[in-house]
């Protein structure tokens, strides 16, 4: 028996009872739609996170004290012997394949202007900060070599701090504000990076590293060995390909300097953007799978709906089955006919579901910061799954139909 005939038969039968076919498909449609929508949203969130990290600068590697656990549930812990300017100089002198290197020193501070105050981290930076972190001043300028060399009391404010201290429309440039009661002249306001899951990225202020270490925090910035402490050392690798080798060489150098035995983990972390992305990506990946699994439950329920309707259909059409057997249909032909019907129900339902999924993803993109990504693999997965649901839940009713005894079936009232 030709497959084309079976498909025609199945479609005719479904068309003969449109409301029922539609309602049965609806279960599958909603399931497939939910799977596609939720997985697209998950993928969109992941892309969004990747983008957030990528905006930090190309091929950026950060070295911080403490051990950062990779993967979900990670965080920094362990003995936090600080990094120092001596470490910075050693890394700068001994690490091949880097374009640029920088260090910063960040501490919380109180900002005041007139009767307004703001409490955020003040970060002492080197002149190459803008280049290495891909972050420039929107108005005015960023810290430069002269500022660092002269230990100047100048500050570039993040947008949030500027908003906190100044009235709307007031020009912050050349105004003198107080940071921990020390007067600083505002030389610039930074580009806004916006709020994200990482927190408000604009709640920052930049001053020269030398000013921060020597004038603002003084004793606080000295380690037990009398070296100036740094919070983060930034390295920019020469290319994508050498990021891992740069991390390895920094790791080796710092372990040696800090005399860490071979069998103990490092008490500092050198991380690339990729690793940070992977750390968060693993979390969102789990979330995506979780959402997909919840959506898959509705597909399962839709599949049970198909089985239910197919069982009813087999009972209703007992005489038809008997007749078909009498006029020469083999059991396998009956089986295939009913299976084709079930598969078509779920497949058409699945196709409608793709539409629903796209629609839902589009709606979300209208209201959320991120853009849901409908991946081809998601669609293939959803369609494949709905096919499998049709086959799985169709096989039992179809077998029942094919095993009917034609004599009893013909006599069925």
């Amino acid at each position: 028996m030709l497959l084309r005939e079976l498909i025609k038969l199945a479609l005719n039968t479904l068309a003969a009872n449109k409301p029922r076919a539609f309602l049965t498909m609806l279960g599958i449609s909603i399931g497939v739609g939910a799977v596609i929508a939720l997985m697209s949203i998950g993928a969109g969130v992941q892309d969004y996170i990747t983008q957030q990290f990528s905006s930090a600068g190309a091929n950026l590697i950060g070295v911080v004290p403490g051990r950062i656990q990779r993967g979900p549930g990670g965080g920094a812990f362990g003995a936090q012997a600080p990094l120092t300017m001596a470490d910075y100089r050693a890394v700068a002198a001994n690490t091949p394949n880097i374009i640029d290197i920088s260090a910063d020193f960040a501490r919380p501070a109180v900002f005041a202007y007139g009767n307004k105050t703001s409490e955020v981290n003040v970060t002492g930076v080197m002149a190459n900060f803008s280049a290495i972190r891909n972050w420039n001043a929107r108005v005015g300028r960023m810290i430069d070599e002269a500022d660092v060399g002269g230990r100047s009391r100048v500050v570039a404010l993040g947008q949030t701090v500027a908003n906190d201290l100044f009235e709307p429309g007031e020009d912050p440039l050349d105004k003198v504000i107080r940071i921990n009661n020390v007067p600083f002249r505002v030389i610039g306001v930074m580009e806004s990076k916006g709020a994200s899951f990482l927190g408000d990225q604009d709640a920052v202020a930049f001053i020269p590293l030398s000013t921060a270490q020597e004038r603002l925090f003084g004793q606080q910035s000295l380690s037990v060995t009398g070296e100036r402490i740094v919070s983060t050392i930034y390295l920019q690798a020469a290319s994508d390909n050498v990021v891992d080798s740069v991390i390895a060489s920094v790791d080796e150098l710092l372990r040696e300097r800090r005399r860490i035995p071979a069998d103990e983990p490092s008490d500092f972390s050198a991380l690339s953007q990729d690793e940070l992305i992977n750390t968060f990506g693993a979390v969102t990946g789990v979330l995506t799978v979780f959402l997909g699994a919840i959506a898959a439950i509705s597909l399962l329920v839709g599949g049970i709906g198909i089985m239910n309707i197919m069982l009813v259909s087999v009972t209703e059409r007992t005489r038809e089955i008997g007749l078909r057997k009498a006029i020469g249909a083999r059991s396998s032909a009956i089986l295939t006919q009913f299976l084709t019907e079930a598969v078509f129900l779920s497949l058409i339902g699945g196709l409608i579901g793709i539409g629903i999924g796209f629609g839902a993803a589009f709606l979300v993109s209208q209201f959320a910061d991120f853009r849901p990504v409908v991946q081809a693999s998601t669609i293939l997965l959803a369609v494949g799954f709905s096919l499998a649901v049709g086959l799985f839940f169709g096989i039992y009713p179809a077998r029942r139909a094919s095993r009917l005894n034609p004599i009893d079936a013909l006599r069925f009232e």
Partner: protein
Amino acid sequence: MISLKRKTNDSSDVAAPRLNGQAPDGNASLVPVIEAHGIAKIYRIGDIEVRALDGVDVTIHRGELTAIMGPSGSGKSTLMNILGCLDQPTRGTYKLDGVDVEKLNDDQLAAIRNKKIGFVFQSFNLLRRTSAIDNVEQPLIYAGVRARERRERAAAALESVGLGNRLKHYANELSGGQQQRVAIARALVTNPSIILADEPTGNLDSKSGAEIMCLFQRLNEETGVTVIFVTHDSRIAQHTRRVIRIADGKIVGDNAITDQIIACPDKALPNPVLEKLEHAAA
């Protein structure tokens, strides 16, 4: 493929009374289409053994118009199921058109039903919401016939039962008599060796019933197709030429009908049915 022009003869044998089918080549040999010997069907219900059929011998030749008659519970339905290859006997041998049927498996039986048997049921058993021609095509689908040839043969079969102008009508839009004619066309379309008609007029008024009987008589006479009625209605039997009576699972009578009723008002056969069917099958 089985030739439509069945070889029939004019022998006055008791088992196969005078046949009116044409015998163009004058061949006088009787060709048995059904040869059943010692057929028994035994059911067990708990400890009780029920003999629905108990040693039945039936031989039916090509071109015969026969009725198997008996009251309900006589075993006639069981016999019809066995002759129709829907069921297999517990004991005995059954040859249909030369094929030993009792040895076949389910799929082979399905193929035999498809090729050699046309069923006509009391309740028509048409597919609802399906056109007349699609209904008639169904057996050809299972025979693996291509769509184009199916259309032609189904149309010819419907024309031969006088429904050439109702091809696209849905089964549920037709009268009872018309529905039964669609069912007859469906039985004819595969050129079967036998047509098994189970109370074919049971759901019809007397006028439609007479039309259906006329159609069977005409088809039998024109094409020589073997028709076997299974009925409890002696009026149907009167339209045949041979009656096999069955009671309590045994054959109790096998007689030629001497006073056959011709259902057709005009005994002439106006439609060139034969040519149409043959043309379509070619």
